[in-house]
Structure formats: C-alpha cells, structure tokens
C-alpha cells in the first residue's frame, strides 16, 4: 500500500475519533463510562452465536475507545495501556472494515446495558469513518448508489413496477373475482403507501393484503411508480448525506402527490428513519402530512371491528420475528400481534419476544451481503434458528425485507421446513371481502 494512503487513513481516523470529544452525548459517553461488566456480550446475538473474543462487543468498541482515550483524555495520554489507551496501528482500518460489519446494530445491548450504552452508535460511527475512506462493503455502496439513482434499492424501473402491479391486480381478480385496485401515481390521494421494494419484487403477498384492506375500507390511497422503496441504507453505512438525500426524494414525492398520510410499509428501518430520525430531528421543517405505519393502521381497523378476518384460512402454526428497528427502536410490538392473532388459527410467540427478541442475524445491512453468508448462517443467525425451531411454527412472519432475506436463507441453509413471509400475507389470506366469489385460498404464499 502506498505510504500516502496509509498516512491519509491514519489522519482521517484520528481526526474523526478525536472529534467525538464534542458529542453526540451517547456516542461519547459509550466511550467514557463503560463499566466493562460483560452484560452486552451476554445478550449479543453475534457473541452468543460464537463466543470468541473477536465477537465480544466491548472489544469491538475498544477499537475506537482505545484511540479516543489516547487522543483526548488525561489518563489515556499519561497512563496508556493501563487504562486501555492505544495508538493507531498502521493498517488497523482493514480490520475495522471486517469487525464493524460483524455487528448487526440490533441494539439488544442497549436494551440491557446497566449504563444505558449502545454499541450500535459506536458501530455506526466506525462505519462512517470507513465510508469516508471508501471502505464501505461494495455491495452496500452499490445499493446506496442504485437507490439514489432509481429511487429503490433493487434498481427496478417504473415499467417493472407497473408490470408487478398489473400482475398482482390479476392475481387478486382471479382469487376474489373482484377489481381490487392498486392505484399508482394518483395525485391527491389521501394515503401514500411506501413499502420496501422487496415486498414489491420478492414477497408481494403483503402488498396484496394491504390492497385488500384498503379496498374493504374504501381508502383513497396510492403508490408511486418511481418511489416504492422506503429502504435507506445510509442508516447502515453511517453515510448521513446519502441517508438525507434518499429521504428527501420520498418527502418530495409525498408532497408532490399531496397526500395527508405517508404510510410506511413492513420495513422497520424505513419507518425508523422517517418517524424517529427525520421527523424528530426536523430535517425538512414542518411537513404537510403525518407519518404512520401500515401495521398500526390495520391493527386499529381490527380493534375497531372495521375489517373481519377468518383465521381458518391460516391453519398452520405461525410465529412472529420482531425486526429490531420496529420493536426496539420504534416500539411497534403489539400491532403485528393484533394482526396475526386475528388472522391465524395457531399463533405462537417465540421466546424471548417483543423488544427483547433476538436479531435475525442480518441487521445493520448485513442481510444484503452474501460475502459473509457463512457468518450470517452459523454465527449471527444461530440464536434465531434455535428460537424458531423451538416454536414448531411452519410460517415465520416478520415485517422487514432484510429480516425476510436473512431468515429465508437461514431456513434453507439449515434445511428447516419453514416458510418466511410478511404479516400482511396472513391478512391477505384471511380477510373477509364482501362480494368476493370465494374465500381467499390458504397458503397461496408458499408457491411464490
């Protein structure tokens, strides 16, 4: 490697690490007040998958903490390794590039840490530094570029999107004998629905479920032919500029369509970026629409008795995996359960669940990286596999495209006879639609 590159790496790393001295508070305090009690390792899905020191979250965070102490604290300067302070080692950044993409950012540690520290905040900072140095994994960089260029992380064209909509429309027609619309680019619609593109292209049953709910309620809704993916990978790679740029595309589209409600689909991190990051931090000023989630919406309709479900359409045992971003970061825990309990005959909880559920093993963007498939299948996904096995469920519902990809691979890899799908998949099968020619067929998702 050229000396100048090495020099630049060192400079950027030290400048960024020293800069943590000015906050934000949770990042800086994670480096300053850890009591080194080991609780985070105890609850970390990666360390539990393979308890070796490489995966101990404290030692991962120490990569930054040791430099930070050396650079900024009195004791670190004078006492050095006695207080865990270290100098930057040439080439160390290459190890960062691996280790900081072995944290799924699931924030389970923050849930249990007695000091209230959050390793995911440190992981994201490290990834931001890697990003500055062009060391973001190629796959994730590509996803961000594609999303900024095409509006969705799969790089699908509006024509491809319209084809899918056409296909889903005729599927529903065949199934129910009814014209259940999926409106596209309808200016003035009340609800602008933004799913993850995975639900359009890979698991479209959830979209049909949602379209049917809207049909029964007579909701005035629309999707966009060029903005149909709430996914925002800048959250994962620490690329704030890309995260904002991607987000702004959706805000502008929502404004153009003149919707009153921006309804996010079954995608945890997309909902988190919209509702708990963008809106809370007030990136774009006051918005002319409210932000909500489709699971909140459908749960409310069930509670009010405005839609009816026939659970006998879903007789197989069903369990639910809480996506980290929905459960821990957004508090959407009850809603998916309201849906599944109403739509399934045999709903089973996994243990633990809700905000304490284990990560699928593909969080933080890892799910998209096939270069670390072995790691995801044998280390980070191990706890989840045990949990799913213990339920005996045949259908594993979740509300996140990244979780779905990881879980589908996990079930195949370990030869488990479990179908992975969305929450609204179950609604699609069980929804009682007035005027439908026949009840919806159970288990039609299995063939997709």
């Amino acid at each position: 490697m050229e000396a100048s590159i090495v020099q630049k790496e060192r400079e950027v790393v030290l400048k960024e690490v020293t800069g943590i001295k000015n906050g934000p508070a949770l990042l800086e305090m994670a480096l300053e007040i850890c009591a080194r009690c080991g609780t985070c390792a105890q609850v970390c899905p990666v360390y539990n998958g393979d308890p070796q020191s490489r995966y101990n979250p404290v030692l991962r965070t120490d990569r930054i903490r040791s430099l930070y102490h050396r650079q900024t604290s009195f004791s670190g300067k004078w006492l050095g390794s006695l207080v865990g302070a270290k100098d930057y080692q040439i080439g160390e950044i290459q190890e960062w590039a691996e280790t900081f993409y072995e944290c799924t950012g699931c924030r389970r540690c923050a849930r249990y840490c007695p000091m209230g520290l959050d390793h995911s905040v440190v992981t994201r900072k490290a990834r931001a530094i890697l990003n500055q140095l062009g060391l973001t994994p190629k796959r994730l960089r590509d996803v961000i570029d594609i999303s900024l260029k095409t509006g969705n992380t799969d790089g699908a064209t509006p024509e491809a999107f319209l084809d899918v909509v056409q296909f889903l429309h005729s599927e529903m027609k065949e199934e129910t004998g009814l014209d259940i619309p999926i409106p596209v680019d309808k200016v003035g619609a009340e609800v602008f629905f933004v799913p993850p593109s995975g639900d359009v292209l890979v698991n479209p049953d959830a979209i049909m479920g949602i379209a049917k709910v809207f049909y029964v309620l007579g909701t005035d809704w629309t999707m966009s032919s060029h903005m149909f993916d709430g996914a925002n990978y800048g959250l994962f790679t620490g690329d704030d500029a890309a995260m904002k740029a991607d987000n702004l595309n959706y805000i502008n589209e929502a404004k153009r369509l003149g919707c009153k409600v921006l309804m996010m689909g079954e995608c945890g991190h997309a909902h988190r970026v919209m509702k708990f990051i963008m809106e809370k931090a007030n990136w774009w000023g006051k918005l002319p629409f409210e932000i909500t989630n489709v699971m909140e919406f459908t749960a409310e309709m069930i509670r009010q008795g405005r839609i009816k479900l026939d659970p006998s359409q879903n007789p197989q045992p069903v369990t639910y995996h809480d996506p980290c971003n929905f459960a821990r970061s957004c508090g959407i825990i009850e809603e998916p359960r309201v849906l599944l309990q109403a739509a399934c005959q045999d709903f089973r909880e996994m243990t633990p669940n809700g905000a304490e559920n284990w990560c699928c093993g593909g969080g933080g963007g890892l799910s998209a990286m096939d270069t670390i498939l072995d790691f995801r299948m044998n280390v980070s996904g191990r706890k989840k596999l045990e949990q799913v096995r213990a339920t005996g469920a045949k259908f594993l519902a979740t509300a996140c495209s990244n979780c779905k990809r990881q879980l589908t691979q996990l079930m195949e890899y370990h030869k488990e006879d479990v179908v992975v799908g969305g929450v609204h998949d179950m609604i699609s099968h069980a929804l009682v639609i007035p005027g439908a020619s026949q009840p919806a067929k159970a288990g039609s998702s299995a063939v997709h």
Partner: protein
Amino acid sequence: MESLGFLVGVILPPITLVVLVGGLLYRVRYWWKLPTPKLTLFPAPEPGPDHLVGVLKATFFFPGLFKSDRTLWLFAWGFHAMLALILLGHLRVVTDFPRLWAALGINADTMSAGIGGTAGILILLTAALLLFRRFRIPRVREITQAGDYIALFLLLAIILSGNAMRFLGHFELAQTREYFANLMLLKAPLPPQKPWFLLHFLLGQTLFLYLPFSKILHFGGIFFTQAALQRR
C-alpha cells in the same frame, strides 16, 4: 507514624478535596453540555414525571441487568447498595446527630454496630465476587483491563482496612469527630494515630483522587446516558 499522619491527615485532605470536587464538577458540567441529537433511540415517555421515574429506576435498580444476568445483578446491586449505606454511615465518623437519634428513640452506637458491621461484611463479599467473576467468566475476563483490577483491588483494600478498624479492637469515634471538626476549621490537626485508620484514610483518599479520571465515575454519567436513551 507522626509524619505519615501529617502527610495523610494534613497535606493530603485539601488536595483530595480540590481534585475530587473540581474533577467531578468538570466532568458533570462537560456531560451536561454535550449536544444530544433530537432523534429518538428508544420510544419512551415525553420529558416529565414518567420520564424521570424511568431514568431514576434505571439508575438505582439496574432493571436491564436484572433481566439479563440475575447473578451479576445480585452482586452489582448488593455492592452498590451497601456502598451507599456505608457512605451514609460515614457521616457519623465526621459528626453525630444526637437529637435525631433521641427523636427516633434509637441507640445509634448499637445500630451502626449492627447495620454498619453487616454492610461491611456484605460489601466485602460482593466486591470479592465481582473480582472472582472477572477472573472466572471468559467474556468478562477478556474485556478486563488493568484499570478494572486496580479499581477493584483498591476498593477491596479500603473495605478490608475499614473492617479491620471495626472488628480488630475498639475504635473511638470521638477522636475522628474532633479531628474532622478541626480540619474543617483549617487548623491542620493531626489525625488519630491508629495504623488501620491512617491506612484506611490514605486508601480512601487515593480512590477519591483517582475517581474523576477513571471509569468509576460511571455513577455520575449514568444519569446522562439513561436520560438521553430514554428520551422521546
């Protein structure tokens, strides 16, 4: 012994006081001023009574630990609770509250012998278990640094010397009260010339001097992290 007494009882206390109070104020003021972005990390109550209750609960009862590691919770909470009790009890070393005891109808000497003695044993036990845990459990051993051992050994030495004072022979509180009263009047008094007391006082001050620069200050920072984490 007299020169050691002079060093520990006359020279050191003002330095300790300045470093401890100055260091604490500096750190807390610094944390107070750190920018906190407005995004939400966990859904939590709006700032207000519920939020405050959440922060205090997390700070004083370690609920996350209770759920994830009951054994550690028992050691850690036991240790900190005993520490708080003992620090409170140390008020009587400096001064006494005869009217309070009379009003409550308590014999303070008997009470502190009972409660203080028990707390002294329990804190020794919990601190030793915390140390044992550092040696014993791989995930803890591999993250333990020299500083962690220093803190624990220092605490153990303070606890042992304190217990020695209580259990090995009689200790006259009147002497220390007189000493601290004079110290506060800046009269440069010599402390009681008892070896265990001098050792305990020296080690205690060493801990206070080290505290603002070490992770032991987590007790000051936890309010800030919990407040930031449990914020909407």
